[in-house]
């Protein structure tokens, strides 16, 4: 008595193999369609904006005249913004992740907090803008400064940083923690010497991805009333500023009035992409460096 009929199996083999090769191309198509759109976007942006990038454009002040306009103010604004966001999200995000994952008692309250953090990650960015406007700009009276903008963007990406850091900490093998506790280490010593170093590469990856998102955000800054006017370069956290996404946004809007503004917007996008590229490279460098140590 045989349950498997060899003849039937042989007949079906061709069909199974063909299905496999068809599906392979379906998945390739899915990958390509994303890549093609991205490529079109990049080519269009570069062809439109690349010619406009020169030393004056990068280092100059804003100007109504497209030939004279520069975006140093926006670059500096984005840079200061990044500093604030990195500072607050890394400290608060890692702190919260360590508490939730390693210290907090797992119970109903814990899962309630956990669910809420996950939900917060899905809240539209403009809502964070409104929150920032109410709390940081008006209530705490920071005005439309780097600090107010940076805190708002920090709030925006904190949930992502917390959740991804938690996942990184969860991925540390339990046996390592046990070995450390078994030698009489306290919880903090174990976290400091075992959990954090092991999880750091993944924590950094998640945080940098979130940071890239914060840098590209426009909606919350619009609500905060960040201008794209001829203001002096920001030199500190309490200065008024403009940021690259804002610059791109206003130039695109005003392209209806002055045609060349569209090209300036494209050129600014290239600069923004370059900054993101540098940021990600730093992240990869740090990650590799740490991975080699362990």
């Amino acid at each position, binding site marked *: 008595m045989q349950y498997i009929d060899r003849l039937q199996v042989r007949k079906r083999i061709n069909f199974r193999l063909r299905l496999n090769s068809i599906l392979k191309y379906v998945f390739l198509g899915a990958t390509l369609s994303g890549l093609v759109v991205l490529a079109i976007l990049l080519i269009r942006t570069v062809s439109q904006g690349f010619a406009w990038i020169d030393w004056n454009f990068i280092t100059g002040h804003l100007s109504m005249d497209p030939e004279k306009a520069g975006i140093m103010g926006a670059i500096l604004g984005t840079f200061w913004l990044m500093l604030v966001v990195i500072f607050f999200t890394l400290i608060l995000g890692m702190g919260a992740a360590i508490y939730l994952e390693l210290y907090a008692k797992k119970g109903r309250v814990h899962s309630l907090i956990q669910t809420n953090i996950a939900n917060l990650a899905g809240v539209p960015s403009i809502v964070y803008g409104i929150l920032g406007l109410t709390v940081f700009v008006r209530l705490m009276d920071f005005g439309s400064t780097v600090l107010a903008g940076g805190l708002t963007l920090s709030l925006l990406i904190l949930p992502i940083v917390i959740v991804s850091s938690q996942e990184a900490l969860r991925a540390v093998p339990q046996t390592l923690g046990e*070995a450390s506790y078994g030698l*009489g*280490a306290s919880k903090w*010593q174990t976290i400091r010497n075992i959990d954090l170093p*092991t999880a750091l590469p993944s924590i950094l990856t998640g945080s940098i991805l979130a940071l890239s998102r914060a840098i590209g955000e426009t909606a919350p800054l619009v609500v905060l009333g960040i201008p794209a006017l001829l203001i002096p370069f920001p030199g500190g956290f309490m200065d008024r500023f403009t940021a690259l996404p804002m610059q791109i946004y206003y130039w695109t809007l005003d392209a209806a009035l002055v045609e060349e503004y569209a090209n300036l917007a494209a050129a600014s996008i290239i600069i923004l992409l370059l900054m993101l590229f540098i940021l990600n490279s730093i992240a990869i460098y740090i990650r590799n460096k740490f991975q080699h140590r*362990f």
Partner: protein
Amino acid sequence: MAVQTQLYAVPEIEKKESKEQNELENEKIFETKSLNLWYGETQALKNIELEIPEKSITAIIGPSGCGKSTFIKTLNRMVELIPSVQTKGDIHYKGSNILSNDYSAEALRTDVGMVFQKPNPFPKSIYDNVAYGPRIHGIKKKRILDEIVEKSLRDAFIWDEVKERLKDNAFGLSGGQQQRLCIARCLAIEPEVILMDEPTSALDPISTTKVEELIQSLKKQYSIVIVTHNMQQAARISDQTAFFLNGEVVEFGKTEELFTEPEDSRTMDYINGRFG
């Protein structure tokens, strides 16, 4: 201590006399009193009453799920890392109750080291693995750390194999070497007791032999409690054996006696391979 070392080699005739002497000299290091433990609703340990003598090897045998691993993990309170665990009863270590609230688990684990079932070196260099414990306890001077590392690795029979590559990552070692490194890491905190939870179950026969020889040599200085699935191993290396079944101690006595003439029929069945 010198007396004990000699006792080990005394001829057969004198052995009976010295045996009694041995029992007197080997004071108990652990004493459990009506120890009960639950994982949530499931009771894993039931009224455990055991006296574990110092400077000797105590083996714990029994089928899977009988509570033997749980038991040794209560001796250094590692069970507390599992959230739903509840313990009742007393465990006296050198006279004080380690289950009382004011006994710190960290202090206990500095006295009672542990070697785990699967070798679990840290993803660090061989040197840093061994130096981890001393550093945790505040030793910073490189000269002292160097000495501790060398002594611990020598005592764990692995110095000659790794002395040329102390800075290499511990993951590059073989499984058996990793386990001996873990034992060295445990020795580096100079514990009184070493708990071993099936330390050779993930190792090949040759590595197992090496680790067993190592354990034998360690009992001169340390009190060792070892959980094992392997009854030959228990018979080979231990001085006394406890047989656990369904969370209870069925029988506890000198290894020779327990394996040759067990008092309980269940022990007999288990050591003869009728179940488990």
